[in-house]
């Protein structure tokens, strides 16, 4: 069953007098539990694609069904609610709140949820999420006291806090060294394996895309290839071979 379906997705930006066509008709379906990598050079439209799938943006034309609900014409508040409940984001620059503890960063999505959650309960859930990414002992640290890999793990813990069905990762390894990159990929692969979370990974590095089970290539706002990756790299195995940092 398709978790999300898009048909004839078109996105046009007006930059001054010029209309930039970022997406020129994209049709695609992603099933629940898939680990999809979206690759392409910069300007290929992959980020715009992710923003629309992530409900941060709306398509100019075309339809987008998320869990069988047409979300292409929802208003801002409704999109915010979907981002809060069904979607998690991991960014290249980590995007953690500065001068704010890891724990407080992680509990952020709970502040904007529909139901009221007590401060104690928020804290408890955030702590569980931090433990899951192995950072229980760093809960009170601020982002500037954490390494890049630790920051990205905090960001992943935050993205997963509301148990979203889909996780979007926009160049998650762009700011990380190779070992930490593999660690992050290991987390993604385990999330897919253990919790069946759908992961959409945006990257311009082909070797990072190799960890995914399906690779979609973008060029000039269109899909140029969409292939299953039958032999993805296995992060956990590679980690064993890499020297410990």
């Amino acid at each position, binding site marked *: 069953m398709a978790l999300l379906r898009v048909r004839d997705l078109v996105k046009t930006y007006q930059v001054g007098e010029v209309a930039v066509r970022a997406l020129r008709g994209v049709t695609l379906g992603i099933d629940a539990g898939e680990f999809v990598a979206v690759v392409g050079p910069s300007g290929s439209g992959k980020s715009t694609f992710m923003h629309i799938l992530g409900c941060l943006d709306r398509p100019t034309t075309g339809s987008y069904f998320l869990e069988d609900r047409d979300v292409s014409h929802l208003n801002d508040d409704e999109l915010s609610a979907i981002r*809060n409940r069904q979607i998690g984001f991991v960014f290249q620059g980590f995007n953690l709140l500065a001068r704010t503890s890891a724990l407080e960063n992680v509990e952020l999505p709970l502040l*904007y949820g529909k139901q009221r959650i007590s401060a104690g309960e928020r804290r408890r859930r955030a702590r569980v999420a931090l433990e899951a990414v192995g950072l229980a002992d760093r809960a009170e640290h601020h982002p500037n006291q954490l390494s890049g890999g630790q920051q990205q793990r905090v960001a992943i813990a935050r993205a997963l806090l509301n148990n979203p069905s889909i996780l979007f990762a926009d160049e998650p390894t762009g700011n990380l060294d190779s070992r930490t990159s593999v660690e992050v990929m290991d987390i993604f692969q385990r999330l897919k394996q253990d919790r069946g979370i759908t992961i959409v990974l945006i990257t311009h590095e082909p070797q990072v895309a190799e960890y995914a089970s399906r690779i979609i290539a973008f060029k000039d706002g269109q899909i140029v290839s969409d292939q299953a990756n039958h032999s993805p790299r296995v992060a956990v195995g590679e980690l064993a071979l890499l020297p410990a940092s």
Partner: protein
Amino acid sequence: MTIGSSLGIAFRALSRNKLQTALTTIGMTIGVATVLTMIALGTGAQTAIEQQVRAAGMNLIVVKAGNYKTKTEDDVGGVVDHQAAIAPQSQVLLASFHPEDDPMEKHDHPTSRQRLGDVEAGLGAAATLTPADAEAIRGLRGVQYVSEGIHENVHAIAGDKRWFTRLHGGDTDLPSIKRSWTFPYGRFFTEREQSRRAAAVVLGSIAAQKLFGATNPVGRQVFLWKQPFQVVGVVSSGSWMVTAAAGDDQFDALYVPFTTIHQLLNLSKLNDISITAASTGDVTRVANDVTELLRARHRIAQNDPDDFTVVTQARQSLAKGGLRPDVARAVVGNVGGLEKVTLAQLGRTLDRAMKTMTALLASIAAVSLIVGGIGIMNIMLLSVTERTREIGIRRAVGARAGDVLRQFLVEAIALSVIGGVAGIALGALASGIIAQILRWSTALSPLSIALSFAVAAAVGVFFGYYPARQASRLDPIESLRYE
């Protein structure tokens, strides 16, 4: 998102940059402090003037026994025939009195009444007021305090000190009528002492100084007419406008229950009755009611003149009531031809002056609050720019535009309220210091504090809305990319 978590976020954001927060709130602090100080000073000045005007007799009515005045100089130097003024239609001439029988006259020797008592003294028409009259006046509508008055001159003797001074017999209501009295030592005589005709005396501060020097005289004895009196208190001026001086009628004086004087001197009549009206605007009506009541009680026929005099002259009391001359001039100077001016009109004049002052205060308040508000708006706009990425992050994890708006609005309100609270503290301190230095009474009412607080919050909402709206309108994607 709950208000609690909005507040939490706001205070955390503000505490992250304490110096910036402090600097931003300074404008607000000064604004609110100014407002509060000015309100305090303004109402303080108003209260002070009102009190002084009341103390000077604005709501005071004095009923004097007798209606025997002949030609006297009026305030402006002209000659007024009071008899003609009082009963112009009457053909009956008033009896003229020996000066010694004039109860208002000051004597340096015992008068006939002191020697013989009022019945034998033949006070006749002059001794017309009785304690029963005063009691009847107490029952009138609009009457606040009533004090029987007997005034004598007396040689007070304490040890080897002698002091010739005024003796006032009065009621326990007298301090309430005088208003501006304070008691540096002891107290005024009590209801019980009055009803038991106790030999209790309250010394005016000048008399106390003359008889006992700087020591506390409470409990000591003073001899009046060779009778021992116990000193129960010392009365002094509690007003910055009235200073006690030797020879004045209020503080170079002794106060004894009128019942005690009646007993001691075998008197049954009163020299005068002092009355205060509950409201200043009501004085004329109360005075008329008193006149009617006394005419009825004294069975005075329609065309006969009063056998008493009701005095309500505001100017007389302003000019002679112990006001500091400059203040009296200021009050009187604002009202041309006071004789023709009713108290209501005088009240309106004071009201107008207060309105002008209030308008001035309001404009100062407005300017300082606008400046403070613009400071907050400026810093909030800066903060929105600085925290664009934070806004993007919050939007990405599901914050609605409304949540962002509220977060920044709450932060602006928190800023202005912090400034406001500091301003209230500073304003209270400033008005306290000013009250100390200028000896000017300041009134810091809970209402003015609540008002300052509300104004601070309102400024936060007004000047915080625009930046908050800007924040909420930011595009999530752009904000996430913002460096």
